[in-house]
C-alpha cells in the first residue's frame, strides 16, 4: 500500500472488469440458489444426524434425550393408538374457534378505533394497558368465572388474538395515506363506499401482518393453556407423557405442535396474501 503522502492517482490504472457473477449471471444465480437450498435443508438434517449418533454412542442420556428414530417410533405409535390424532384435532379445533373469534372482534374494534375518534379517545388507553398484561395471568380469574373445561381456554385464546389484531388493524387503517381518502371523497363517496373501496383494501397488508403475528402467538397460547389446564390436546399430551415418563412421546408431541404452528401460520399468511395481491409485486 502506498504511503498517503506519496499517493498519486496516476501511479496505477484502476480496472473495472466483470467478475464471476457478471460473466455467467444465470449460472451464478443457479449455483447460489442451490447452495442456499442445500444449507436450508442440510443444517437441520445434519443436526438430527449428530443427535442420532450421540444417542447411539451413549454420549447423551437417552432417558432424557431419546434418539430421533426412537421419537419417530413413538410418533407412529401415538398415531396408531389414536392419542396423537385426537390431541391434534382437539388443539386445532380450539385454535380455529379462538382465532376466528379473536380476529373477527379484533377487526371490528380495530376499525372503530381507527375511524371513530370518540371511540378511540375512550378505549385506546384501556386497550393498550390491557395489551401488556400477560393473558395467561388472567387464567385463574377465568377459571373462576367459567369453571374448568374448554370455555376459559377459548376465551383466553380469543382475547390474546383480539389485542394483537385490534391494535394491528387500527394501525393499518391509520397509516392509509389520506390522499387515497381524499380521492374517494372528491368523488363524493359515502362512508360505506370509502370503507369498501379504500379502507378495507388499503389496510389489508397491515392487517395481514398482524394476523400472522397473532396466528403464531395463538399456537403458543393454546398449547401453553393445555399444559396448565389439562383436558384434551397436544399440550396435555406433552405434559402427561412427561409425567408418566415417556420422553419419546413428549418430544413427538412437541414436534407435532411445532408443525401445527408452522402450518397454521403459513395457512393464515397464504390466505391473506391471496386477498391482497397488490401489496407485493409478484416476482
Amino acid at each position: 500500500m502506498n504511503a498517503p503522502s506519496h499517493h498519486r492517482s496516476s501511479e496505477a490504472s484502476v480496472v473495472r472488469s466483470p467478475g464471476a457473477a457478471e460473466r455467467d449471471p444465470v449460472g451464478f444465480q443457479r449455483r447460489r440458489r442451490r447452495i442456499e437450498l442445500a444449507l436450508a435443508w442440510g443444517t437441520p438434517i445434519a443436526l438430527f444426524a449428530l443427535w442420532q449418533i450421540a444417542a447411539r454412542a451413549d454420549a447423551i442420556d437417552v432417558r432424557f434425550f431419546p434418539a430421533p428414530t426412537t421419537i419417530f417410533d413413538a410418533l407412529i405409535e401415538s398415531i396408531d393408538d389414536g392419542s396423537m390424532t385426537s390431541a391434534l384435532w382437539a388443539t386445532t379445533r380450539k385454535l380455529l374457534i379462538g382465532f376466528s373469534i379473536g380476529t373477527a372482534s379484533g377487526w371490528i374494534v380495530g376499525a372503530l378505533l381507527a375511524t371513530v375518534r370518540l371511540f378511540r379517545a375512550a378505549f385506546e388507553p384501556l386497550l393498550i394497558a390491557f395489551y401488556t398484561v400477560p393473558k395467561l395471568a388472567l387464567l385463574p380469574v377465568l377459571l373462576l368465572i367459567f369453571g374448568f373445561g374448554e370455555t376459559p381456554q377459548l376465551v383466553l385464546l380469543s382475547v390474546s388474538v383480539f389485542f394483537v389484531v385490534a391494535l394491528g388493524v387500527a394501525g393499518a387503517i391509520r397509516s392509509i395515506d389520506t390522499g387515497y381518502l381524499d380521492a374517494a371523497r372528491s368523488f363524493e363517496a359515502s362512508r360505506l363506499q370509502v370503507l369498501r373501496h379504500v379502507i378495507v383494501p388499503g389496510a389489508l397488508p397491515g392487517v395481514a401482518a398482524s394476523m400472522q403475528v397473532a396466528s403464531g402467538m395463538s399456537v403458543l397460547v393454546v398449547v401453553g393453556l393445555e399444559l396448565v389446564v389439562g383436558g384434551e390436546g397436544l399440550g396435555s399430551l406433552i405434559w402427561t407423557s412427561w409425567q408418566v415418563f415417556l420422553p419419546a412421546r413428549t418430544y413427538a408431541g412437541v414436534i407435532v405442535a411445532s408443525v401445527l404452528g408452522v402450518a397454521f401460520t403459513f395457512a393464515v399468511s397464504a390466505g391473506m396474501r391471496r386477498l391482497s395481491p397488490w401489496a407485493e409485486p409478484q416476482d
Partner: protein
Amino acid sequence: MNAPTVDTTTVSARADPILTAAGVTRTFAARRGHTIDALGPLDVTVPRGQFVAIVGPSGCGKSTLLRIAAGLTKPTAGSVELRPGGDSRRLLAMVFQDYGIFPWKSVRANVRFGLDLMATARLDADAIVDDWLDRLGLGAFADAMPGTLSGGMRQRVAIARAFAADPELLLMDEPFAALDAQLRTILQDELLDLVQATQRTVLFITHSLDEAIVLADRVLVMSSRPGRIIADHTVPFGRPRSAEIRGDQAFGELREELWAALRREVERAHRPDVDGGSR
C-alpha cells in the same frame, strides 16, 4: 400588503358562472394556539366552459382553494358556490398530484371508480371505461395493477378516471408535477386535445407558467401566503389551438409578464425575515 385589486368579472362570467368564490379565507390552527392565514380573502368567478390556470408560490394556498371547491376542506370565512347547469353526470372530479389512483385496483377498476360509486348500469360503464382507456392509450394495460406502471401511465389513469366520471368541473392539482420534463410536455399536449374535444370547465393548479399558458384560457397569479389573486390574464390564443403556440412571440411575452408578477411573490415567500414566509 397591498395587492393590486383586479377585476375578475367578465361579461361571460356574469352571464353563467359555474364557480363563484366570495371572500374565501382559510386559517389553519398551528401549535400553541397560533393560527396561520393560508388563504384569502379571495374572490374569483369562473364562467362555464373556461379553462383557468392558477399559479403562485409554494404554500400560497392554491391547493387549499381547490380542496375547498372539491369539498375536502371548508373555508373559515366566505364561501365558494358551485352551480351545476350542464347535462354532465356529476358536478366535479379531481385529479391529484399523486396518491390519486388506488394501488389495490386494476387500471380498469380505477377508471371505473367514479361510475361504480354512482351505480352506473354495468353495460354503460363498460363502454365508457373502454372509451377512456382507449383515448389515453391505456387499452393494453387495462388489467395491470398501478404498481407496475410508470408515473406517466399512472397519471393517465388518474385523468381517465376523472373524465370517465363526466364532471362539469374538473379540478386538477399539479397533476404533472411529479413527471419529468419530456413526459410532462407530452401529457400537456394530450390534455390539451382532451379538453378541446370535450369542452369542460377546468381549474388547474401548476407551478409551470408554460403549462398554464399552453392549456388555459385565463391565468390567475396568486400572492404569497395568505394567497390572493394579484393578476388575471387572458391567454391570447383561441381554440382549438395546438401546442405549437409554445414558439409564438405572444407566448413569450405573456410568460415574461406573468413571471414579473410571480417573481416578487416567490421572493417574498422565501425571505426569512418576513412573517408568513418560508416554511
